[in-house]
């Protein structure tokens, strides 16, 4: 039993590394042209990584959040756009697999997702609410057995390339802004009217354009659990952990490039310590902090898994928020250290030591659900939450 699960885990890592090699080859082109990371995502699908998180009964491999995070970290070291596309897809899979109850339609969809390696996008952000995903303006309308929804979605990553989109909305026309549901629409059930271009500093390949989404589907495609539960018990934590994993990947590759630079300098003048060596040691220590932060978060999530009370506890939300804020800030410091080490060779594009793409991609981390918004949210909880001062927990 144990041996089999271990073999699977090793298999996943190898498959992810093979996909990452392809993604890495095209990372600069994807970034420069601001285009969908087609080659990387095709390689991910060819390695059959899209459905790994789906339970075996529905055709998947039942991979844990930590295993999915490892795949994100591996892809993140090669191409952040591929990694972010993959991570966002897995966040949606976690919501559907975890919160569709006994819904036969969703079980059937998960089976199809594994068979056909489908890609799911997310539309939570909306004009007028920014990154406050626990509020919606738009409301889903039920007409007999059909639901209909129109949403002014400001950002839908890889919307044009997705096979399905999970969309949040108010539960009905009279519902409060926080009384939300989440509905999975298939590609032939919606149209996307392009409204906003994604010409950004970094994460250019996520193609996170804005659209007016218009969809109509059978009402069984609405996830049975209220979105409040999905967000509290899965989406927020899984987002912060999988994003954290790929952000770690970006920083880890930057440190690898800086280490390559320092090592090359050391070889050129044996017996002397290259000037960047100390800074590299510092970057390595910071990278370990980031890794420790993400891994501790993953452990906490795995320990609470399936326990709605623990997952919706304030202490858990505070911990996950802290992972997100801490990792998103520290990777910038790390990559900046690496840039100082590599100097002009890091500043230039197209060298083995280039760091421009890493630095630009990493800058999205603090905005992807604004750190100020998250800190505001944590500070509210700290008014009542009692700190756990134990070390091991």
């Amino acid at each position, binding site marked *: 039993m144990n041996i089999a699960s271990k073999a699977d885990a090793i298999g996943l890592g190898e498959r992810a590394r093979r996909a990452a090699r392809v993604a890495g080859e095209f990372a600069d082109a994807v970034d420069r042209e601001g285009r969908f990371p087609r080659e990387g995502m095709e390689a991910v699908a060819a390695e059959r990584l899209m459905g790994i998180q789906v339970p075996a009964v529905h055709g998947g491999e039942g991979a844990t959040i930590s295993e999915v995070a490892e795949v994100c970290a591996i892809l993140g070291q090669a191409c952040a756009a591929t990694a972010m596309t993959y991570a966002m897809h897995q966040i949606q899979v976690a919501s559907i697999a975890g919160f569709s109850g006994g819904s036969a339609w969703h079980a059937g969809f998960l089976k199809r997702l594994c068979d056909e390696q489908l890609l799911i996008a997310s539309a939570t952000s909306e004009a007028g609410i920014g990154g406050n995903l*626990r509020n919606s303006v738009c409301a889903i309308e039920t007409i007999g057995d059909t639901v209909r929804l129109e949403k002014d979605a400001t950002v839908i990553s890889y919307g044009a390339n997705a096979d399905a989109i999970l969309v949040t909305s108010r*539960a009905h026309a009279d*519902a*409060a*802004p*926080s*009384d939300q549901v989440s509905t999975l629409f298939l590609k032939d059930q919606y149209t996307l009217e392009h409204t906003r271009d994604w010409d950004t500093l970094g994460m250019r390949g996520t193609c996170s354009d804005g659209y007016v989404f218009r969809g109509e589907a059978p009402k069984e495609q609405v996830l049975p659990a*209220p979105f*409040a*539960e999905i967000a*509290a018990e899965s989406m927020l934590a899984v987002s912060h952990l999988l994003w954290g994993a790929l952000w770690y990947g970006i920083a880890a590759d930057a440190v690898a490039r800086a280490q390559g630079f320092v090592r090359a300098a050391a070889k050129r003048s044996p017996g002397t310590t290259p000037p960047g060596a100390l800074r590299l040691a510092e970057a390595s220590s910071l990278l370990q902090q980031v890794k420790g932060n993400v891994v501790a978060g993953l452990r906490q999530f795995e320990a609470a898994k399936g326990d*709605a*009370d623990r997952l*919706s*506890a*304030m*202490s858990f939300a505070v911990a996950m928020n802290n992972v997100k804020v801490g990792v998103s800030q520290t990777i910038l410091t790390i990559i900046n250290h690496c840039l100082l080490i590599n100097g002009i060779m890091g500043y230039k594009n197209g060298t083995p030591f280039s760091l421009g793409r890493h630095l630009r991609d990493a800058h999205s981390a603090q905005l992807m659900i604004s750190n100020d918004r998250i800190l505001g*949210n944590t500070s*509210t*909880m700290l*008014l*009542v*939450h*009692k700190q*756990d001062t134990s070390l091991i927990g």
Partner: protein
Amino acid sequence: MTTAEIIRDLVGKHGKLPVDVATLGDDSDLYTAGLSSFASVQLMLALEEQFDIEFPETMLKRATFASIRAIADAVDSIVRDQAAA
């Protein structure tokens, strides 16, 4: 006033609900009625002040604030525990 009545009053004052608290039953889902996480913390602080209690960490979860009755049960159990201590 009963505990539930006091709580109903505090939900009305601090819950920032888009609906009148009088339209809600003791078992109505407060989150569905629009209780935000920010407002639930403000409500918790008001409850701690009103009943001179402190919510233990184990009660700081969504389910505790799901309805007026759930809050009343939580408050009653903390009051009982504090009296026994």
